[in-house]
């Protein structure tokens, strides 16, 4: 296996590297959490990295000819190709280093995709990438819960009931998105037992986020991180509340922060505190009512939403993570 980077865990937010790998030159929206995710990701990984990004906001809004924000080598890949792009990049490095065609040194390979590119179109390629134990790579799925680059269309990762340009509330059908959000990280963890590291993350918890990137890049083999990224345009709220909405997603128990490392699940931060019963989950209405995409929801809709979140904490085998349980013996 090719060499792994020496990226120690960061102790304290003041020790997050000052060096930037993602700088000015992009055109992301005000309050874009995905831009923060990119910035934190490459701060954690450092300059000896190759980043590949599939089509989506973080391609179109970021990289315009002559004004790239990327200080590290960066390449576009197709919408459904983050898994293949990471595999191809890592395979080339491995082959050329082994054969002496390139200096043998640790180089981080990171491919990112949005929820459309990852949870929908690119799922099979990500699955294939996670089967190749011999390649060190990280796939980062930044989830803003819609196809946000093409005018906010519903994806398989959009929350139930959310208003989007493909799921607008109408006079006959109030709820046009009847799908429950895909449980992507556990699906990948369950399906790829050899994969050593899969985590969820949120840019509102910066230190936790950067350390997860570092663990993913140093554990060896293919890894996957799924981050929840509040999107002012798609979720319809004032851009200044992005950070707060990320925290609310976690505090209401709608989003669960965890790492699945070598077969063990470790809940992080507020999710851990909630699971231990130290703190109660906030009602989901506090989260939903802050966003225009849920403005058409009735009290009954919000109750249904709350009941589904309750179920994920009370009925699931592993709260918020594993949506099934052993059959109870009679």
């Amino acid at each position: 296996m090719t060499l792994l980077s020496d990226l120690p865990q960061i102790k304290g937010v003041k020790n997050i590297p000052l060096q930037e790998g993602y700088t000015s030159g992009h055109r992301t929206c005000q309050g874009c959490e995905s831009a923060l995710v990119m910035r934190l990701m490459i701060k954690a990984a450092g300059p000896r990295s190759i980043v590949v990004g599939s089509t989506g906001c973080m391609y179109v809004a970021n990289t315009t000819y002559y004004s790239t924000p990327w200080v590290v080598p960066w390449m576009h890949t197709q919408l459904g190709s983050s898994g293949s792009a990471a595999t191809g990049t890592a395979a080339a490095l491995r082959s050329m280093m082994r054969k002496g065609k390139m200096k043998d040194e640790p180089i981080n390979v990171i491919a990112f995709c949005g929820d459309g590119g990852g949870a929908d179109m690119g799922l099979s390629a990500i699955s294939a990438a996670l089967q190749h134990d011999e390649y060190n790579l990280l796939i980062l799925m930044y989830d803003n819960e819609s196809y946000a680059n093409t005018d906010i269309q519903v994806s398989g990762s959009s929350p139930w009931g959310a208003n989007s340009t493909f799921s607008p509330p109408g006079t006959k059908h109030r709820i046009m998105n009847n799908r429950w959000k895909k449980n992507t990280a556990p699906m990948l963890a369950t399906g790829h037992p050899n994969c050593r590291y899969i985590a969820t993350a949120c840019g509102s918890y910066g230190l936790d986020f950067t350390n997860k990137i570092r663990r993913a890049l140093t554990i060896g083999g293919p890894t996957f991180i799924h981050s929840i990224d509040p999107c002012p345009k798609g979720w319809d709220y004032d851009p200044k509340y992005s950070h707060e909405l990320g925290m609310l997603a976690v505090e209401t128990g709608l989003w669960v922060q965890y790492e699945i490392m070598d077969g063990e699940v470790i809940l992080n931060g507020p999710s851990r505190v909630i699971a231990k019963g130290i703190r109660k989950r906030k009602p989901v209405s506090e989260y939903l009512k802050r966003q225009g995409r849920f403005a058409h929801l009735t009290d009954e809709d919000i109750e249904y939403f709350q009941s589904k979140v309750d179920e994920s904490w009370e009925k699931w085998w592993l709260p918020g993570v594993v949506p099934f349980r052993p059959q109870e013996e009679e």
Partner: protein
Amino acid sequence: MTTALAEQFAVAKEELISGSEAIAIACALADVDVITAYPIRPYDTVMQYVSKLKADGILDCEFIVAESEHSQFEIVKHASAVGARTFCGSSGVGWFYAFEAITVTAGLRLPVVAMVGNRALDDPGAFGVEHNDALAVRDLGWMLYWVATAQEALDIALMAWRIAEDSGVFLPFAISCDGSFLTHSQAIVNVPTHDQVQKFLPAYDRGKLQLHPDNPITIAPQVNEDWLMEIRMQTDQAMRGSVGVIKKVHEEFRTTFGRGDPSPFIEEYMMEDAEIVLVGMGTLSLPVRVALRRMREAGKKVGFLRVKYFRPFPADEIRQVLSECKAVGVIDRDYSYGSPSFGGVLFHEMRSTLYPLERRPHVLNFIAGLGGREVLVKDVDHIVDIIQQAVDTGTVDQETTWIGVRE
């Protein structure tokens, strides 16, 4: 240090192998770094040989069995951007499943070499040869070559990396091999030594376009209307420039290995004083040659022109060769529904090529051998009879004729 590869190919030898195996051997000789596979008949035979060469330690590469053709082509695309020599391939609808990746590979100027085992585009289910699969890339910036023998498959594969990886070209190269007739049929092939190939084929150097932390470039940002036309024109210049590179590499190949036609682009057969010329691609040339030999014995002035490069299309050479003949019969193993003459793809390219000639020959089109149906010597006789009638009467009653179709 002697590698298993150098040992395996220490002396030149003759082997009885298929076109697919010939290309797999070329992969080993070329020291390809990343190869991706996905099963579909008939191209996948090449990957069966590649995987065995890897398993036996002769070929040192990353051999990745992808989960789809799309991923197969995306993986080599990205490996090529990092500077790795790559190979992949597909057939029929598999090639189409990868089409998004195939499109951007040319746009990104990445010298991926692919084998297309030509196959009908089912449904309805059919895995015999038809050329429509590979022809679909004709407008995208891929170089496109049609092979007639297993020897030619090995030879063009070695030249393909050399041409594609020329920094003035940097375009992907597709080697088209007729399904079954070439992918599966065995013939005697001269296999060169590792030493010879090393001298002929230098390492792939991506230069200042290599994606590496020492060269932190951004590849494929959004250009939109600001820059797209300039970039399209650069790709056009590269394709135009490939003509000279192809000629140079072909000449060097002939000097190094002592074989090959005089022209890299076309093969002429019994063309001297030919009044009627048949034109076609791939293994079709075999029954045509047999029929022509018999016709020549009977005193008929008939020749055959095999088009090897479909992209870049050798218009100048074809015009020179066909400027004196009376009639041209283009045999297409493909079809273009609704095209100007309701004919084949090669036919329309040929007619467009011949249009500027001062004295234009009659150009007739024959659709034959679709879905792998065999083209027989009697079919060729029938084709020449129809052309002869046009020559005798001075008129073409029917531009396109389907050959060997049940009523």
